[in-house]
């Protein structure tokens, strides 16, 4: 245990995800030795993240304005919407540079253990979004890209149920299966089993 402010800082840092007690200690002492100007910059950034960041009215992604960059972009196809759990998942899909549609961020997945039900997620907003036209276009395809774990799969199933009454809407789920560049022999049975059941004809 250190005294006073240093220990407070270590405790606060240690509560961040992915930061253990040792890392927290390292960061704390790094900050202690850092240039006051750098600390000021960090302080500003922290302050701004709470005050300056808003969530996009349309998709729920983190944004600097009321509508995010992707929802404002006329080159992005408004008829295809990719539904993800977190803003960081938007970034992951964006990195592929394959997807030219738009997003909808749920803000999590169904997780009764943590008290998260459909009302805590942005599902109602998705349904409202379905019934309004964007740039004169209807949404014709929803791609469900929730995590391939228990909670993500349950969320996907729930969304499919909610969306099946929209006429002419295609609802798809991201394929799950073998990683590229991997070896078939090292794939675990669950992944390989899923890849088998989701196989496509060539």
């Amino acid at each position, binding site marked *: 245990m250190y005294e006073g402010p240093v220990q407070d800082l270590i405790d606060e840092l240690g509560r961040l995800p992915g930061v253990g007690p040792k890392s927290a200690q390292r960061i704390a002492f790094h900050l202690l030795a850092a240039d006051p100007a750098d600390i000021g910059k960090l302080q500003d950034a922290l302050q701004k993240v709470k005050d300056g960041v808003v969530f996009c009215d349309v998709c729920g992604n983190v944004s600097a304005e009321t509508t995010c960059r992707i929802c404002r972009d006329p080159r992005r196809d408004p008829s295809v919407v990719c539904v993800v759990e977190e803003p960081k998942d938007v970034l992951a899909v964006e990195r592929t540079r394959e997807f030219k549609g738009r997003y909808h961020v749920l803000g999590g997945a169904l997780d009764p253990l943590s008290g998260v*039900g459909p009302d805590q997620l942005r599902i109602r907003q998705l349904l409202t979004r379905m019934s309004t036209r964007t740039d004169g276009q209807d949404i014709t395809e929803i791609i469900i890209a929730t995590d391939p774990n228990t909670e993500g799969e349950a969320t996907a199933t729930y969304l499919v149920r909610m969306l099946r009454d929209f006429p002419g809407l295609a609802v798809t789920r991201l394929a799950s299966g073998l990683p590229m560049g991997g070896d078939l022999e090292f794939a675990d049975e669950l992944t390989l089993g899923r890849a088998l059941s989701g196989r496509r004809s060539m």
Partner: protein
Amino acid sequence: MYVRHLQVSDFRSWEHADLVLEPGVTVLVGQNGQGKTNLVEAIGYVATLGSHRVATDAPLVRQGCPRAVVRTAVVNEGRELLVELEITPGRANRARINRGPVPRPRDVLGVLRTVLFAPEDLALVRGDPGERRRFLDEVLTSRAPRYAGVRSDYERVLKQRGALLKSAGAARRGGRPADLSTLDVWDGHLAAHGAELLAGRLDLVADLAPHIAAAYAEVAPESRPARVLYRSTLGGSQPEGVGVPGGPRADREVLEDALLAELNRVRPQELERGVSLVGPHRDDLDLALGELPAKGYASHGESWSFALALRLGAYELLRADGTEPVLVLDDVFAELDRRRRAQLAKVASGAEQVLITAAVAEDVPEELSGARFEVHGGEVRRV
């Protein structure tokens, strides 16, 4: 297969232990409390990622140490694999195969297969249904490691669904409308994973039953015939003949539909009690001698014989599948009478590798002579 080398650090009472083993019989002899069982427990842990004595990992780590390490070199059909496990209570364990890390510890399942018989196994006959479910799942995972994943998925869904039932029940009692829109979703997932686990267990029992009956007849020829029967929460809607030797194989989709229908039927009770009442987590393996259930009716000797028959049946089944598991007999000879000792010795002497622990060397039948280690005062020495 056999274990060629076992090394443990900070595991149970052992700061460090190093044993070079051979195929055939190995007997670990030592006074009580010297740590014989801890050594075979380590081998069992590598095979099942669980201990036969405790449900959590914390007791496995030597007092005051952050983690325990178990290293085993396993030889299977002439090829050697090195499996290393680092056990850190409260954190995810880490595993390596041939010095290469694997993404999840459960990827080491299947490298080493063991059948372990210990005094605790009396609970298989006399204990709660949970003991018998654990036995079935252990054998299931030994046969097809995939089921470790199926089981953990099922348990995750079960937990989530339980949380939902509890909050929905509380809302109802408070006069608020319960949000049941997502319960259907969890029902669907529970039925899907549950059906897979159930199908696996039913087929396993169908395959296992004849081996258990034969083993019991050998161990206790004077007793009534032993029967095992899987009893699921499906009751009357369980498909006819499934889970019985010679019957049809279990159909996952049929079971899934049956589970869903049953879930629908009991939903009011589930909401009232806030627990999941249908699914393989509430099933049992019925053990019977003649017409009577073993639990409550079998004598002490018969209960022991039945527990032994369950383990030997599993051993014979794994053997029939084509892999020779390592047989571990932990402190059991002292508990058995002369004729059961002789029967067990007969089976054990045919095994590729048998590891035996005993407090007194004289308890071990003469047919089972082989390498002998003395365990005393934190040291293990070959004699």
